[in-house]
């Protein structure tokens, strides 16, 4: 590589765009939340968290994100392990079927669950036909449907992160462990799992932060009493025209994602030490 002043010229257009249209707007949003009548203040944050409704929204968002991440790990881990041990060709096929939903519009993906979980949806009609229930269950517009929607949205991401790491675990390591007397279960616990942790971390960060910030799914699959941070921003900005509160929620969202990413990374470096 060479040293060259002209390189900055290559980067300049991009830098200008990002500074003007990413950094400046974000800064302006964050800045106004600390602006008071006289200098900087945390008053808006205090007011926000004093409101039990807001606290509820915040806690719900974290809870749903945590639940989503856990389910994605539980479903994704064994699946990814299975995929990572397949032949190159079969693995490619599985990857295609994971990437396809990932590239499909989130509106379409959330909508498909409205079709399944709705009052006259498929699940209810099946259950009714089997005489397992008398009346249609209320499956939609609650926390349950949001979690299902989020898991559906982010599971491919978890699978891709894990497969990426697991397919690099050398088959020889597994055979070495077996030749030293480890059963399949022990191989999994003592070799596969520890070596998959980096993928697990990446996947979890992606799914968790994705769930905290997701808008489409909670908007379509959630109801009026399942507001989360993302829908709260939208409500405050577009229905209540309360720009200050919307900015506060936005800032809280940024801080939370940064903090969670930092925490999980910290945790992983301790695990690796």
């Amino acid at each position, binding site marked *: 590589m060479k040293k060259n002043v002209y390189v900055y010229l290559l980067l300049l257009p991009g830098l200008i765009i990002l500074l003007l249209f990413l950094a400046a707007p974000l800064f302006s949003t964050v800045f106004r939340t600390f602006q008071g009548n006289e200098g900087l203040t945390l008053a808006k944050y205090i007011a926000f968290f004093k409101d039990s409704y807001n606290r509820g929204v915040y806690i719900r968002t974290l809870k749903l994100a945590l639940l989503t991440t856990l389910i994605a790990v539980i479903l994704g881990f064994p699946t990814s392990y299975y995929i990572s041990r397949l032949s190159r060709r079969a693995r490619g096929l599985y990857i295609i079927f994971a990437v396809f939903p990932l590239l499909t519009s989130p509106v379409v993906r959330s909508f498909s669950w409205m079709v399944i979980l709705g009052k006259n949806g498929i699940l209810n009609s099946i259950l009714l036909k089997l005489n397992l229930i008398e009346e249609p269950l209320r499956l939609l517009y609650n926390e349950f449907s949001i979690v299902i929607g989020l898991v559906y949205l982010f599971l491919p991401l978890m699978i891709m992160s894990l497969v990426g790491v697991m397919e690099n675990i*050398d088959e020889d390591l597994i*055979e070495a462990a077996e030749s*030293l*007397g480890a059963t399949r279960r022990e191989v999994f616990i003592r070799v596969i799992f520890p070596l998959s942790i980096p993928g697990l971390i990446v996947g979890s960060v992606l799914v968790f932060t994705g769930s905290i910030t997701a808008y489409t799914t909670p908007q379509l699959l959630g109801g009026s009493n399942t507001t989360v941070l993302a829908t709260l921003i939208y409500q405050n900005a577009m229905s209540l025209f309360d720009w200050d509160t919307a900015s506060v929620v936005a800032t809280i969202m940024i801080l939370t994602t940064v903090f969670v990413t930092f925490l999980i990374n910290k945790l992983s470096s301790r695990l*690796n030490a």
Partner: protein
Amino acid sequence: MALLSLKNISVAYGKNVVLKNLNLDVEKGELVSLLGPSGCGKTTTLRLIGGFVEAKNGRFVFNGKDYTKIPVHKRNFGFVFQNYALFPHLTVFDNVAFGLKQRNIPKNEIKKRVMEILETVGLKDYADRSPRELSGGQKQRVALARALVIQPDLLLLDEPLSNLDAKLRVKMRLEIRKIQQEYNITAIYVTHDQEECFSISDRVAVMNNGVIEQLDTPQKIYNLPRTEFVANFVGFENFIELELEAKERGGGGFYKLKNGQRFKVTHFNGREYERYVKGAIRPEEIDILNEGGGKETNTLKGIIGISTFLGKHYQYVVETEVGRLLVNGSAHKRYEKGERVTLYFPEDKIVLV
């Protein structure tokens, strides 16, 4: 009775047959090498013994018990992999201790045995290192220690030195041999490197196309190959078609060449007499004489073709009535292209294959 026997083992991946009715007996305390070009089935044989490959047909008997269906983790065989296969998330100590922990051995006993074996392989001070921090040679020692510490009933080594540089290879193979003999451990060693194989083994099995062509001591393999493949593999570059004329007592006999010339062959590797055979001879065993020199038998007339200087000697391509032959000649005298010579084939240097 042999400690280990493979009986009529066949292995196939789909239609691709890798091993065909393979038989192999290994005695206790022996180091047997499987030697051959890539794709000959040597690694498959080793992995079958290790339990990583399933046989389509045949039985694997070990120590009088049928091991054919015993899972890998119950075999108690140490396996040393070509690329070491050290657990990257564990220290050297924990790598070596892995198998012992699996056997529920008390902690202080584990510590004692791990440190002992690390001392044997000269890595006592490296116990707390991560495999990443080790050189190739050190990694291989850890892999060896890890396989040995479980006191395996059999040690399997899959081209363990092929990722090391030439000098280190020589050093490590001596060490492996020393440790193997010290522990009196039965071992099977896969390699494609002849010199390595000959220097380390009690017996060598030369494999080709999924069968063992010859199982013998290194000396016999080198001097008295029994098949054309083995002969070619160990450096017999010239093959001359022969037809039996008269047997001699104690082996050997008189043979006729295609051009009517007669060869006497005394060297005999214990094959049955066959009417049509091939005589194999190394380039360095053929003598170049001036035209018309030598006796009636065991000579051929030829014309010098391309010559190459190889340092210790010249190597000539010589055109003869029975085909092109490779012959080494002294570095002091160089025959010119087109020169007519007589080649002499010493009767005890020709091997019938």
